[in-house]
């Protein structure tokens, strides 16, 4: 809930500042690669779905499927990080950084804070997968797996708003 409140305040601050500098925001936003934003959204929602399927597999005592599906979720999470690195490098190479303008101050700070959550969530998924390998999750006990899954879905949920605000809102 703390993450939701914190990001909620960031989102509102973003639209508030956007209103005061709408031309700066629109011009800067046009330099973002929409396709990379779409790719990252698809990677994250699919990773979240893989985690949902892993929880379902644990409830059905399908241990191998839990490990396999968490592995897919981790691979997709790492692909998200890779796409974000490509995006950041292109911006830095073009001389764009956090102090270029208000839009990029928001873009870099919000996406970097979110990326830290993605990395944290990926570590949780890796640990969860290790536990799943030991057969820790089964029909009678999926609590640890569900807690990790819930955090990962939160990361997905926050990105859905970030994608709409940073890439789509014109």
């Amino acid at each position, binding site marked *: 809930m703390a993450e939701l409140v914190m990001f909620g305040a960031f989102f509102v601050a973003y639209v508030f500042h956007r209103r005061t500098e709408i031309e700066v925001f629109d011009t800067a936003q046009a330099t973002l690669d*929409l*396709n990379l*934003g*779409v790719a990252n959204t*698809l990677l994250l929602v699919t990773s979240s*779905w893989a985690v949902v399927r892993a929880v379902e597999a644990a409830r059905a005592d399908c241990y191998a499927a839990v490990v396999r599906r968490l592995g897919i979720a981790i691979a997709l999470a790492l692909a998200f990080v890779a796409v974000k690195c490509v995006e950041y490098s292109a911006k830095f190479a073009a001389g764009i950084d956090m102090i270029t303008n208000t839009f990029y101050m928001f873009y870099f700070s919000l996406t970097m804070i979110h990326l830290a959550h993605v990395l944290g969530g990926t570590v949780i998924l890796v640990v969860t997968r290790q536990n799943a390998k030991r057969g820790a999750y089964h029909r009678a006990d999926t609590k640890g797996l569900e807690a990790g899954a819930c955090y990962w879905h939160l990361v997905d949920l926050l990105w859905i708003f970030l994608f709409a605000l940073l890439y789509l809102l*014109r």
Partner: protein
Amino acid sequence: VTKLLQSRSDRAWLLLVLATLATSCLASQRGIERYAGATALLIAYAKARMVVLDFMELRQAPFVWRAMTEAWLLIISLTLLAFVLL
């Protein structure tokens, strides 16, 4: 495909993918930027709600948890929409 559409979470994933592609097509249209942006926010609300209800399984959670999360989604989405449209 029929098997895929039987589960609520599978349907949610398919809708999330389709909604993402639809909003990106909408964002590429010229001349309707303001309304496309507002529509993108409405679709983001619908997508986030699907993640909350069908992925996080808050549909089956205690009322307080579901109410708090749904309230956050609604308040944030309406505030963002108000800043964009008014």
